[in-house]
Every structure is written in C-alpha cells, then in structure tokens.
C-alpha cells in the first residue's frame, strides 16, 4: 500500500501493523477463497437439506448460490473493504446469470433426448400417419420429414439467389437512396413475425386461387419471406470482408466487373456464404406458425408434390400431435422433436466446420 492509503485509511494501517501476518482490515482474501467457500457451502446446504428432509437438486443449487453470495460479501466486507465486497458479489451474480442460461439449454436437450429416444427408430422414420387413428400404437413421421425437406428445399431455392444477389447489389453496386432503403427494409424484414409471413401468403393465395387452398409451395414461399433477410445479412457481411485489393487487381487485369464478382469475390467469400446460408436454413427449418397457415396441419399421408394438397412438416407434426394430447401423441411429438433438433444441430455444426476449414487464410 502506498502513502495516500495511509492518510485516508489510518485505521486499516493500524490494524495491519498490529497483526501483520493475519488477515486484516484492508487486506485481501486469498485466491482460493471463492472455490473453497463454494465447496464448503455446497456440502453444508446438502447436509441441511437432508436433515430437513427437503432434498431437491434445484433447491440445493439455489440455496448454495444465495448462501455463497451472502458469505463471500460479508467475508469481503470484514476482511477487505466494501468496494471489493461489491466486486465479489457482482462476480457471483454474473456467474449465476450464466448458470441460469444453462438450465433451460441442458434441461431442454436432456428432456428431448430422453423422451425422444423412446420412439425414434427406423420404423418411426419410415412410415407416415396414413390410416393411423390418433391413439393407435403405430405410425411415424416419414411424411413430415419429407415435407420439411421439400418445403425448406424450395424455400432455399427461392431465397438464396434473391438474398445473394441483393447482398451483391448492396456491397458491389449499391449507392444512394436505394441502397439505404434496401438496407433499412431488410432489417425491418428480419423482424417480421413468422405468423405474419404466413398470413401474407394466405392473403396472396386467396387473391390468386380463392380461399382454402393449402400446399407445400405456399409454405415454402412464406418461409422464404423469413429466410431472405437472414441470407442477405450474412452474405453482405461476408462480401464486405473480401479485401478490396483483390477486386482492384482483377480490374487492373481488365476483367469486367461482373466476372470479378463471380470469379474473384464470390469464391473468396464462399465459405462464409455457405455458413450463413446453412444457419439461415437451420433457422427456418424449425418454423411452425407459417406452415400451419399455408401448408395445412392435418395431412397424414406421404405427399411429395408441393403444388397439390396439404403437406406435413416436422414442426407442424410436433404441434398437431401435442394438440391431440394423448400419451402416445406426446411420444411421437418428442421423437419428432429429437429428429428436428438433430437436423438443426447437423446444419449448425456442418456450418461451423465449413467456416473453420474452408475460410480463406488470413495473410
């Protein structure tokens, strides 16, 4: 401690001089204090809960966390000072915040895995619900998996070209008011509620085909309304990362601008663009609300034709099974949820791998 401390905190200095080798006012807690305190409190609260016959892991964690905050703050106030005590309290709070976020993630993944594995097998993935009464111990989600793949596939076919070309416009060509407007409205479009995207297609379909017409194509269009802004955003970000020197070198060689974009800019950014598109796919593949409105929620048979008849998809399958409400329906819903999460996670991880291994090396 330096001279100013001596002047402003004479008591602290006095105390330390009186007992130089012990913890004293104005000193500091040893580094191992937090983990040791935490371990001790965990054991104490576990013991207390057992004695009180109130054993419950959730309660244990909450009690331990609260007790830790109280103890570490008090200890720090006594041994250190109130500023450091506040710092230690906030540190504990911040750790708890992260812990809180992990509770839903872990419990959700665990529940879906534990409940979903019961019914998820080859049979479940290879048959539809055609001819299966709601409570029958049979049936599967093949039609829903197929529908999901068809609908999201078409949605990707629509959104990727539009989204990518818009991103190219924004980065390579755009200037002035049109660019500002597009940037702004792409942001606005990101915030469109999914159900409104569904209603948009419903309204469009009523105008073109009359009321009551539902099919896979309508679902795909509503999904692409949600997917386009995501694709634009991520592609734009990636195209901006391409160094300008590459473009200039290409122009210097007399390559036209459009070929520069196609042969120089896009290949450089392709890893990031692929990642962005896969993340966008992962986002829309789980969309439910627009598909209930546009692709129907009561299809039971295999239908691979996007322009004729209702088409089931995995998210809608989960929803409609839950609405039926029986035990067997919940089993189907969990199994379908596990399938859906597996598909989403696969997209997610492949996207990370692509961005890691195919990204251009920084110079």
């Amino acid at each position, binding site marked *: 401690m330096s001279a100013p401390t001596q002047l402003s905190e004479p008591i602290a200095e006095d105390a330390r001089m009186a007992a130089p080798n012990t913890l004293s006012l104005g000193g500091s807690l040893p580094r191992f204090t937090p983990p040791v305190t935490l371990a001790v409190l965990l054991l104490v609260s576990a013991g207390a809960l057992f004695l009180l016959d109130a054993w419950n892991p959730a309660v244990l964690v909450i009690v331990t966390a609260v007790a830790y905050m109280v103890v570490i703050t008090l200890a720090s106030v006594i041994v250190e000072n109130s500023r450091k005590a506040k710092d230690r309290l906030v*540190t504990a709070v*911040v*750790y708890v915040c*992260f812990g809180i976020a992990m509770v839903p993630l872990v419990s959700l993944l665990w529940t879906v895995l534990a409940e979903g594995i019961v019914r998820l097998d080859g049979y479940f993935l290879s048959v539809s619900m055609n001819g299966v009464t709601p409570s029958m111990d049979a049936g599967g989600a093949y039609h829903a998996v197929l529908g999901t793949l068809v609908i999201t596939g078409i949605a990707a076919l629509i959104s990727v070209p*539009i989204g990518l070309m818009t991103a190219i416009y924004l980065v390579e060509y755009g200037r002035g008011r049109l660019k500002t407007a597009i940037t702004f409205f792409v942001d606005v*479009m990101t915030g469109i509620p999914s159900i409104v995207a569904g209603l948009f297609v419903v*309204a469009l379909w009523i105008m073109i085909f009359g009321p009551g017409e539902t099919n896979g194509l309508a679902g795909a269009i509503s999904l692409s309304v949600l997917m386009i802004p995501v694709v634009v955003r991520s592609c734009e970000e990636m195209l901006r990362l391409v160094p*300008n020197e590459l473009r200039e070198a290409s122009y210097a060689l007399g390559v036209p601008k459009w070929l520069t974009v196609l042969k120089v800019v896009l290949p450089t950014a392709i890893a990031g663009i692929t990642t962005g598109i896969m993340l966008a796919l992962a986002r829309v593949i789980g*969309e439910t609300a627009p598909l209930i409105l546009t692709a129907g929620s009561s299809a039971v048979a295999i239908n691979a034709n996007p322009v004729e008849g209702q088409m089931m998809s995995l998210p809608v399958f989960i929803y409609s099974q839950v609405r039926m409400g029986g035990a067997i329906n919940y089993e189907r819903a969990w199994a379908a949820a596990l399938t859906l999460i597996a598909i989403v996670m696969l997209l997610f991880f492949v996207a990370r791998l692509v961005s890691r291994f195919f990204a251009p090396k*920084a110079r």
Partner: protein
Amino acid sequence: MTTTDPSTTAHVPRGKRRIGDVVFANSARGSGILILVILAGVAAFLVAQSFDSLTANTANFLTTSEWDANTREAPAFGVLALAFGTVLGAAIALVLATPVAIGIALFIVYYAPRRIAAVLGYLVDLLAAIPSVVYGLWGIGWLVVQLAPFYTWLETYFGWFPLFAGPVSTTGRTMLSAGIVLAVMILPIITAMSRDVFLQVPQSHREAALALGATRWEMIRMAVIPFGRPGIIGGAMLGLGRALGETMAVAMILSPSLVVSWFLLQSGNQTIAAHIALQYPEATGYGVSALIAAGLVLFAITLLVNMAARFVVSRRKEFA
C-alpha cells in the same frame, strides 16, 4: 484488410458497356427492389384482405375483447384482449431476460476464462438454434410441471401482490409460464447484441479505469455500461420484437381466454400470434379475414418496435 466500401472506391473503368455487366448489375438491383416489393406486398395484401371483415364488423375492432368472427352475419370481434396479452407476455419476457442477458454478456467478455469464453458463448448461441415448437413442447411437457408447485408457493407467500393473486392454475399453463419460455427464447438475441458492444468498448477506457484503482465491477460500471447502453437497449428491443411475434411457445403453453387479466398465475389471456395459429384451421365466414386484421395489428406493433430498435442501434454507430 481494408474496410472501405468497395462500391465507392472500385469503379469500373469507363468505356464500352459490356452486356454481362449490364445484365448482372440489373439483376442484382432487381433482387434488391424485389425485397422492397415483397415487403410492400406483405403490408398491402394484409390490408386488402382484412378490409372485408373490418367493414362488416359490428363491434369496435380496437376496444373489443370478444372474437365472434366465424360467421357471415354481424361478426363482432376486436383485438383488445389479444393486444394486451401480446404486450404482457413480451413484457414479462423482457423483464426476465434483459438482466440475465447482460450478466451473461459480461460473463463471456470479462469474467469467463479466456480459453473457454468462445465455447461458452457458442453454448448460449445454441439456445437460438432450437426451434420455437420444441420450446413449446419442452414448456408444456417439462417446464409447467416444474413451475406449478412454485406458483402455489408464490401465491401462498406473495398472493397479496396483485400480479400473483390466486386462484393458482393447477396445470401451470399461465401467462407467466409463457413469459418465462419467451424469456429463454430472446435471451440469446439480447446476449449477442450486448456482447458485441461490450467487445467494442475501447481498451483505453477500460485500462484507464483499472489504472485509477477501480475494481472489475467499477470498471464495468464506469467504462463498459455507459458505452454499451445503446447496444443493450437496441438488443432488448430486438428481443422484444421477437417476443411480441412469437407464436408456438405461447400457443402450446397457454390455456387461453379472451380477457384482459393482470393475474399472471391464473390461466387466461392470449396473444395475437397464438390466437391466429389456434383459430385459423377452424376459421369460417369472416374468420380468416378477421385473423388477417389481427395479424396486421401485430405487424404494426412489431414494425414500430423493430424500427425503434434499429434507430437506437444505428445512432450508437454514429457516435462510437
């Protein structure tokens, strides 16, 4: 790596116009314009299709709670209770999620061990990857079961507080449950925005605070929070926009009724989005048109919130 805008620095040399250039440039611009057309179409079609029912409506659309639209004669419906439920659910989610999200962002940027910080951030991002229907299934299949005893406890000790007045729903399928699930869903959005601005806090500000003897918390309070506030607000509003429009979690968890109710532990309330999803398959008469009108209200609310959020965020960029 340069960050200058290539559209202004890299001009095509003037000369003969190549046909490829013209086609490519125009198709790029066409895609951009198509997006504007789609967005205008969303608004225009919703207005056009809701017109029918709104003119036939015998009740005031904005001040009525009941929903009697599945008829061809004298439909009477309004969005009052629905709009209230939508805002209430989103508000619960926002109140619960924002402090936790800020805590997580601080944890990842300033507290977590450097080596695993990226992995922990990735875990939080995973929350955003889980489909909303799975959140709904988890909510009704697991969460409400856990919450029901907690609600009874809450009512026993805090029942005097108007929001927590009984009788408690025995199933746990209440607005509070829906709000909690919505909070989980918007957590990664707010966290991501906050984390981004925390990472942008100039190192000189942080080091200056620490050099003056500030503890880590004082450094955060003095250097990080003031700098990051617009980003946090913007992130919270984006989260709010998401919570307002979220359909499935609410539709699956809440046991709905079309009343304006402040009692979070009782079953009741309903949101616009969930109402549309539940009612659409059974809609007849003016039903579909009326639901589209409700969707238009939702569209307007989320549009305002999102535009305000973008405004806040973009203002930060100008000053940063």
